[in-house]
C-alpha cells in the first residue's frame, strides 16, 4: 500500500478492514519496513531524512543502540580519571614527538632574516633555569667528548673555532611563547662531529652543562646544516649570560633544547636512567622541534 504523505491525517478509529493491510504493526526501527498505523506523517523531512512512527519500546531500543555507538566519545572521559590521566597524556605527547620526528626534514632550512630584522642585542632575553652565570672558568675551559666517537678526549675552543664559521640570523623561539631574531656564529655541528669521528648512525647526542642543566638531541637534528656549536653572538664572543664559551644553537629546536655553557658531549644510542633533558624529565616534549 502506498501512503500518500499529502493525505489528510485520518482519525484513529477508522475500521481496519477498509485498509489494504490487515495487520498494523509499529515500525520496527530505522531499517524497518513495518506498516504505519492510521496517523501518517510524511516519510521524509525537508532534507530527506527518514521519518518513522515507533512504539515507546522500540524507541527505547533505538536510543540504547545509538547510545552504545557513541562509546568512542565516552572513551575520551578516561582523561577525567586521575589514574589514567598521566599514562594517557604521556602517550599523547610521545605520539606527537614521534610524528615530529617523521616530519623533520634534514635539508629543510629554518627561515633566515636580513640584518635589519635582527633584534637589538639588548632586546635578546637571558633565559636560564637556575642562574644566569654559573661562573665558568673561561681560561681553563675545555669540551670533553665521549661515547661512540673515534677521537674522544678534551677539545679546546680554538679547535672548534678553527672549523669554518657559519653566521646566521635566525628566529629563537621559546616554549613560553615569545620569539626573537638573533645573530649567531659558530661551527657547524656536523663538521665538529666529523672531526671527533662521531658515529653519525647513533641516535643521540647527550650534553652536560656548567650549571647542572643537561640535554639530549636526536642525531638527525645534530646533522642539520643550521645546527651550530655556537661561540659568538652579534659578532662578539658569547657573554656569560648567553652561555659562554660554547652553546648549542639550533633554529629547528625550541630554546630549552639549545643547551648553554657546554661542558661535555657524548654520542650514544641509549639515554640512561631516564635522563633525557632537564625540562623533558619534568614533562616537556623531548623532541622539542620547530
Amino acid at each position, binding site marked *: 500500500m502506498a501512503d500518500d504523505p499529502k493525505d489528510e491525517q485520518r482519525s484513529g478509529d477508522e475500521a481496519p478492514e477498509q485498509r489494504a493491510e490487515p495487520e498494523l504493526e*509499529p515500525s520496527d526501527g530505522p531499517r524497518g519496513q513495518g506498516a504505519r498505523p492510521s496517523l501518517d506523517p510524511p516519510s521524509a*523531512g*525537508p532534507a530527506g531524512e527518514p521519518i518513522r512512527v515507533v512504539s515507546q519500546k522500540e*524507541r527505547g531500543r533505538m536510543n540504547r543502540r545509538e547510545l552504545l555507538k557513541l562509546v568512542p566519545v565516552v572513551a575520551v572521559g578516561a582523561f577525567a580519571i586521575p589514574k589514567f590521566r598521566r599514562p594517557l*597524556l604521556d602517550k599523547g605527547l610521545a605520539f606527537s614527538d614521534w610524528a615530529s620526528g617523521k616530519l623533520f626534514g634534514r635539508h629543510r632550512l629554518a*627561515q633566515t632574516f636580513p640584518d635589519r630584522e635582527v633584534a637589538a642585542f639588548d632586546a*635578546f632575553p637571558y633565559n636560564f633555569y637556575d642562574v644566569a652565570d654559573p661562573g665558568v672558568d673561561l681560561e681553563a675551559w675545555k669540551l670533553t667528548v665521549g661515547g661512540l666517537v673515534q677521537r674522544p678526549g678534551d677539545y679546546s675552543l680554538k679547535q672548534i673555532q678553527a672549523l669554518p664559521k657559519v653566521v646566521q640570523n635566525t628566529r629563537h623561539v621559546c616554549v613560553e611563547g615569545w620569539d626573537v631574531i638573533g645573530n649567531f656564529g659558530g661551527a657547524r655541528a656536523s663538521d665538529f662531529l666529523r672531526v671527533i669521528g662521531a658515529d653519525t648512525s647513533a641516535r643521540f647526542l647527550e650534553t652536560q652543562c656548567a650549571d647542572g642543566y643537561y640535554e639530549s638531541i636526536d642525531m638527525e637534528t645534530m646533522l642539520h646544516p643550521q645546527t651550530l656549536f655556537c661561540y659568538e653572538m652579534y659578532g662578539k664572543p658569547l657573554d656569560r649570560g648567553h652561555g659562554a664559551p660554547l652553546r648549542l644553537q639550533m633554529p629547528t629546536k625550541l630554546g630549552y633544547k639549545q643547551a648553554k655553557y657546554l661542558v661535555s658531549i657524548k654520542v650514544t644510542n641509549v639515554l640512561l636512567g631516564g635522563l633525557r633533558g632537564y625540562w623533558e624529565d619534568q614533562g616537556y616534549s623531548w623532541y622539542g622541534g620547530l
Partner: protein
Amino acid sequence: MATGVAAINEKHRADIVVAYEHPLIVRLAHWLNAAALFVMIGSGLRIFLAFPSFGPKIPQENFVNIPRQLTIGGWLGGALQWHFTFMWIFVGSGLMYLVYQIATGHWRQVLFMPRDIKGVWPMARHYFLFGPKPEVEAAYNPLQKLAYTLTVLLGVVSTLTGMVLYKPAQFWWLAWPMGGYHYARIWHFIAMCGFVAFIPGHLIMVAAHGWNNFYSMITGWKRDPEYLG
C-alpha cells in the same frame, strides 16, 4: 470490529513520530570535537599565560590576564601535554566530519552561500527580537548555515595557525603567508576568540529548541519534529 479497532488503538496509542536528523558520524564528530575544543581552549589559555603578550619579551607588556581557574593543565608543561594530545582528537574529528559531508553531498545543506545572506536577518530577528518565524525551507536555516560554516572556518584557521606555532621551520611555507611565527600566534588567539564567541550562542539556541532537539544529537532521532506542525 470494535474489539479489533480498540485493540489496535490501544496498541498504537503511545506511538511516537521520530525523524532521523543526525547520522552517527556527524554525532561522533560533534561530541569528540566539542570535548576536544573544551580542552584545547582550556589548555591553550594556560599556554598563553606563560607569555600573555603579543609584543616583544623585552620590554614585556601583557595583553590580557586570564584567570588561572579557567585553564587546564596546571602549568605550562602540563598544558602542553593536554594540547598536544587533544589536538589529534580535534583535527581527527573535524576531518571526519568534513570528509563525510563532502562524500555524502550533505555539505550542500550546511554551507553558507551568497543566496543565504538575505535570510540571516529575518532569522536573527525571530530569535533575538521576537520577530515572526520565517518559513522552514531547508534542513538548516540561513543563520544556522552561517554559524556552522564559520565554525568550520574557525577550525581550519586554528589548525593551520596551530601547525605553524608547533612547527614554524617545517611548515615555513604556511608560516610565510601568515607573517611568521609571531603573527601566527595572534591569528591562533583570534580563532580561539571566535570559538568562545560562538559557544554561548550555540548553547542558547540548542536550549531554546528544546530537549528533543538536543537529544537528537545524541541518538540521531528527533521526536516530534517541529516542521510536521
